């Protein structure tokens, strides 16, 4: 059975176990004089049987389904004749895709060597075997555990507390998934990053001013595959983020001030959701807009003014990214400004200050730390934004501060290095993970600082 069907079948078995458990608890209660002589309601006996039946089986199913692909791959590669065993993981993935293409019939048998055909047959056989054993094991576990659970139903059994504590553990493991995700992120980037630094020296990555992962610059270079200096990528990222902030911070902040201090309810009720719509538009749409409308417009404009500009400018990507971030800045600032107590406002107005003076001299300074936190969060978002820069910023790693030139960013390079054909032991693909690690650390740092500032500030008036 397919894992998805097996999953459904296990659920059906668990439902059957529920009804059997329910029936057994009732029939045990009958001679005693009704269900009030049971320790728990029949529902809980049924639920207990269902949990006994379902949970172990689903754990087995999950583990098997997660690892069977890898195990089968290893077995197939291991069965190849020694001269065909691939040396690198790049070769291995090529070979594996060849074998699975033969197995699925996409590649005719006549086109490949005999061992590959054998391996493909073996792959098909192993897949069928794995599917059979998985189905047999999962069903056996479900039936056996369900039967045991059913057998152990006694009138004195406190099924409710058992069911509740299992549920509590289930809830806990769902919450713990957040930790697991973080660990997964850290390990998945950390391992590859360490391997990357085995190939490319630390200093080159952090202090190199050349980024060209495709070509070898000189034959005796350590990596011999190109230059991996991340400085131009980080300056490019910072340039685009800075442009985005120049757009987003004044516009977002002033709109927030107007909406929270001046606008009446009606205007606010219309404008605020419209601003928030900007945040709900997918980034690929902004990328499309930046690449096909804004970038040509800017380069035409620059050309008509006699300035030289490339067709993909940092200004186009950064400007559009700024528009995307406006609602982010405005809603965070709005929160912070609203959190400033009314008494401060009233005091200032009572002294004869105008509304704008109150805003500038009293509320803004009071809200400043919170706004700073919000801006930092927005910066972290700009640094991590991918689609706009992938579509509009370009690929050339230039070390420049000119917004009319093409720059590239960390996220652009991650995407370009990891899409298309790849082998997982080259410095090129590992570099993407190293960049990912840097990106993760940078945004994490910004977020932690920003959240600290925001939280600390909020406590002041509470």
């Amino acid at each position: 059975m397919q894992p998805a069907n097996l999953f459904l079948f296990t659920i059906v078995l668990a439902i059957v176990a529920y009804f059997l458990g329910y029936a057994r608890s009732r029939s045990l209660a009958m001679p005693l004089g009704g269900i009030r002589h049971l320790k728990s309601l029949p529902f809980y006996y049924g639920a207990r049987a269902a949990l006994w039946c379902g949970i172990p089986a689903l754990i087995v199913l999950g583990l098997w389904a997660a690892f069977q692909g890898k195990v089968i791959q290893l077995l197939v590669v291991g069965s190849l004749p020694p001269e065909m065993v691939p040396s690198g993981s790049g070769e291995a993935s090529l070979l594996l895709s060849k074998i699975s293409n033969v197995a699925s019939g996409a590649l005719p048998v006549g086109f490949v060597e005999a061992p590959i055909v054998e391996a493909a047959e073996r792959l098909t056989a192993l897949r069928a075997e794995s599917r059979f054993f998985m189905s047999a094991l999962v069903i056996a576990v479900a039936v056996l555990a369900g039967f045991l659970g059913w057998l152990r139903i006694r009138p004195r059994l406190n099924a409710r507390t058992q069911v509740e504590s299992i549920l509590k553990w289930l809830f806990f493991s769902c919450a713990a998934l957040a930790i697991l995700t973080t660990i997964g992120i850290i390990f998945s980037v950390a391992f590859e990053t360490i391997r990357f630094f085995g190939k490319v020296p630390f200093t080159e990555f952090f202090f190199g001013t050349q980024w060209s992962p495709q070509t070898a610059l000189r034959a005796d270079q350590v990596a011999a595959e190109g230059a991996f200096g991340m400085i131009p990528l980080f300056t490019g990222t910072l340039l685009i983020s800075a442009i985005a902030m120049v757009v987003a911070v004044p516009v977002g902040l002033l709109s927030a001030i107007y909406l929270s201090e001046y606008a009446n309810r009606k205007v606010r009720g219309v404008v605020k959701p419209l601003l928030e719509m900007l945040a709900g538009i997918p980034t690929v749409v902004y990328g499309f807009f930046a690449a096909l409308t804004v970038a040509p417009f800017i380069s035409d404009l620059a050309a008509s003014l006699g300035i030289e500009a490339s067709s993909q400018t940092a200004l186009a990507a950064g400007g559009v990214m700024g528009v995307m971030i406006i609602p982010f800045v405005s809603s965070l600032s709005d929160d912070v400004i609203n959190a400033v107590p009314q008494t401060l406002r009233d005091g200032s107005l009572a002294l004869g200050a105008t509304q704008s003076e109150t805003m500038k001299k009293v509320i803004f300074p009071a809200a400043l730390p919170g706004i700073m936190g919000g801006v930092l969060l927005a910066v972290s978002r700009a640094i991590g934004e991918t689609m706009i820069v992938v579509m509009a910023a370009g690929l050339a790693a230039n070390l420049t501060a000119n917004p009319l030139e093409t720059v590239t960013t960390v996220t652009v390079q991650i995407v370009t290095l990891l899409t298309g054909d790849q082998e997982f032991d080259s410095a090129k693909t590992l570099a993407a993970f190293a960049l990912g690690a840097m990106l993760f650390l940078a945004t994490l740092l910004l977020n932690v600082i920003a959240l600290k500032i925001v939280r600390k500030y909020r406590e002041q008036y509470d």
Partner: protein
Amino acid sequence: MTDQPSQAELVRQSLKRRYRKERRFRAYGILAIAIALSALVILFTDIIGKGYTGFLKTTITMDVHLDGEMMYLDDPTDARQLKMADFVEPLVQAAIKEIPEATEDDRDAVRGLINPYASVALRDALKANPDWLGSTRSMTFLSHTDVDVYVKHAGDGGYSIKLDEQQKAWVDQLQERGAIDTSFNDVFFSGGDSRDPSKAGILGAIVGSLLTMFITLILSFPIGVAAAIYLEEFAPQNKLTDFIEVNINNLAAVPSIIFGLLGLAVFINLFGMPRSVPVVGGLVLTLMTLPTIIISSRAAIKSVPPSIREAAEGIGASKMQVVLHHVLPLAMPGMLTGSIIGMAQALGETAPLLLIGMVAFIVDVPGGLFDSATVLPVQVFLWAGSPELAFIERASAAIMVLLAFLISMNALAIWMRKRLERRW
């Protein structure tokens, strides 16, 4: 009396200046809002202006004489013969007949008006109706992409017209007679991706998006709600709970591309799952949307007043019964609205899916969770990067469909919040 102006005079003078400043400050605020809203308007008009033509297709209607001799076909029920037969010739002959000036010498120019897939359509028609052989039928075919571009964008400098002067004259003439016509582009909604813009559709991407969203929904909603219940109702105040909370807040702010790296390293490299399938896409998006759903679900649980809990506890319900029978049903509307918003985010997400290989060129509409698929935003990305301008209008049209989905999801969330909101 000195020459010095009085205090009142000074104030009066400064007041004018201060009020001017006040008005200016207010104007800045209005200007800021105007900039933001005009950006929104420009974005929408640009996309609609570019893309509405994507919902139109150009067709050519001709009287096709299905001559068996011309096609080297005498039995349309014979699959082998159908495969070998020539279905281009009757189309070319029909087109030549439609255009009075065209002669046998203009074959190539005439052929340039008809879509290369039209012969496939003709073969399928004949296969379905074998008795048509030998008769003359009025049939409608897709026109060539170049004709499509010319008909839609003749006056638009941004598009390069590939037809020559003679072909343009023919198209104008046929258009006047109504033989070449534009109509609603059903192909766009019923097909998968294609190398030929006039055959390219978004059905494959929509189905891929739906399958991916299905996985995301069935995983992230129950897990998110369960995690929120644990953290809000059962978690003891200890280091582990704090750590989980900090983690969830941080994950909500991690760039989405990092989740793509995670998916690539764990699901594809470690577990050996296939690339570019909805299951892996759904798993990655699940991890990405979980923090959003957990945070909004916790807010929903928090808003249930303690009196409800106390009342239930007062009549002897256990903690779990209080939560499952009383708190959860009351918090459910809030949880659902939060999840819809999280799903809308996931639906528009592109970057992590690029890393797990959902950028492949896939023509077929995916049939299951383990079939190679692409999703709507990735389809937009692929078409936007195409050098052929006819794909740009398809990309804009696909964006409109995507935005329609998103806006209706958000509208649903707002409607639900209004409808189910409860005040205590």
